[in-house]
């Protein structure tokens, strides 16, 4: 305290003058905006949205992995079917075709599919007696790997060469069998991407509404801060920070819930023991990409809050 002209003792700092006039941030300023935290909608909305986006993203990545694994598996693969009703003739043509194939330039490997594997393949449809009785003329199959691309013209030429020694030979690229499957997988991947984008928009819309509500609830405080010399940027930063904290809590919760759901789903699918599913497992890079979902969601929430608040503040004096 100090003596002043009028004999009145004023707080000393009033006689000295005060502080620099910069902008400040920090926790205490953030408390200016009344915090609703878990009672507000933002954490819950973000948790649900992030969980759905993460699961959709994981689905998309798993489908991509499946497609990639299948593509690698089938790359350069052809199947030669020897369609011949008489077993002896079928066997002769199969041996001749196999011998010829092994001499053709560009064929890296060729092998006859064993009879027991063929029996196992048709067993679900024809039963166990099919192979033994040989009543049903199951074609002989040759599995071969070719170097280079499997252009239709190349396959047609190969089939023409093979038919000279095995008239019942039919050549198919293995990938063509799965073309519809790949098409369906690609569609599902686009669908998961579309879902993520739509959920991101929905997140933005929810944050926009919440930010407007928060603005309405804190209108008096905002006016006071304005009248005390607070800038739009300062005020927007308060809301942005508050909503970011809420969003971060929600995003972390949602992401953890999604991870748990993905593990449960992964265990269920792995129990299927189907070849095509085994390639769907998520790798480290996939998880790193999924980790972007909550981060981007929080960024979307922050930017939406800032944009909403700045836009509303421009309407005030």
């Amino acid at each position: 305290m100090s003596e002043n002209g009028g004999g009145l003792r004023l707080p000393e700092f009033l006689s000295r003058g005060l502080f620099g006039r910069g902008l400040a941030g920090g926790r205490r300023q953030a408390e200016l905006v009344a915090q609703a935290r878990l009672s507000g909608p933002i954490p819950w909305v973000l948790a649900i949205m992030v969980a759905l986006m993460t699961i959709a993203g994981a689905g998309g990545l798993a489908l991509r992995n499946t497609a990639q694994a299948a593509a690698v598996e089938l790359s350069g693969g052809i199947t030669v079917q020897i369609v011949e009703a008489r077993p002896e003739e079928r066997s002769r043509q199969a041996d001749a075709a196999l011998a010829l194939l092994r001499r053709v330039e560009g064929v890296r490997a060729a092998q006859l599919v064993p009879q027991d594997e063929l029996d196992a393949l048709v067993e679900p449809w024809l039963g166990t007696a099919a192979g033994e009785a040989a009543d049903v003329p199951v074609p002989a199959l040759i599995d071969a790997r070719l170097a280079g691309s499997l252009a239709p013209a190349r396959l047609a030429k190969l089939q023409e060469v093979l038919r000279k020694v095995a008239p019942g030979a039919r050549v198919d690229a293995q990938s063509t069998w799965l073309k519809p499957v790949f098409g369906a997988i690609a569609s599902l991947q686009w669908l998961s991407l579309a879902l993520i984008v739509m959920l991101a928009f929905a997140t933005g819309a929810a944050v926009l509404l919440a930010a407007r509500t928060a603005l309405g609830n804190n209108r008096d405080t905002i006016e006071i801060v304005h009248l005390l010399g607070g800038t739009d940027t300062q005020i927007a930063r308060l809301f942005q920070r508050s909503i970011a904290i809420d969003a971060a809590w929600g995003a972390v919760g949602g992401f953890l819930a999604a991870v748990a759901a993905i593990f449960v789903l992964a265990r269920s699918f792995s129990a299927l023991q189907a070849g095509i599913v085994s390639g769907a497992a998520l790798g480290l890079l996939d998880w790193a990409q999924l980790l972007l979902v909550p981060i981007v969601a929080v960024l979307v929430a922050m930017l939406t809050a800032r944009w909403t608040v700045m836009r509303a503040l421009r309407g005030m004096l």
Partner: protein
Amino acid sequence: MNAAGEGEIVQFDNVGLRYETGREVLSDLSFTLYPGSFYFLTGASGAGKTSLLKLLYLAQRPSRGAIRMFGTDAITLPRERLPQLRRRLGVVFQDFRLVPHLSAYDNVALPLRVAGATERELTRPVTDMLEWVGLADRMTARPATLSGGEQQRVAIARAVIGRPQLLVADEPTGNVDPEMAIKLLRLFEALNRLGTTVVVATHDVHLLRKVPDSLIMRLDKGRLSDPTGYPPRDSAATAARPVAGEGQ
């Protein structure tokens, strides 16, 4: 009058104010507030005191006329530059306008935080200020738990803590006991002696006589009824000072 605005805190020139399409609540206001002066703004209820104060603390733009504050045209000033002017003001609102979820301490600290003071810088001033207004033991109390008089003292502490160049107070002693009213008035006077221009809106005619060097601006139905102003009592000191409306 200094036409260039140099050396004047506030200059109103033919200012009028109407809310939306209603009648003018303030008309043809032309006056100048000089640095280091102490003004009482008086008038009956509905005379336009609060509206005039709103123009002074930049909560409202006038419908017509020109206002210069601190040498700057406050009418054409882009709104993003308004905070620079507002930080040179201290305002005591009639309804206190404390932030309800903040403590008395945080309410008083608010202008300093807005201005960029660090927590270390502001702790002592805020504590001293609250002690000075007799609220040392109520620092952590929220406004809802404070009496009207206590809230008013918090509001006044918040208004003066930044040592503003212009202090605008709307009925600042309306809710405090006479002893505290005198003490707060002495605070305004002391700040005034340090160079702060003070404008106090009040109904209380007794208050006018307690600040001998003050000038009076009397509003009547939105107009300054005595645009030349006059001191509450004759004195050589006040007669020599510039008065509101002088030079029109």
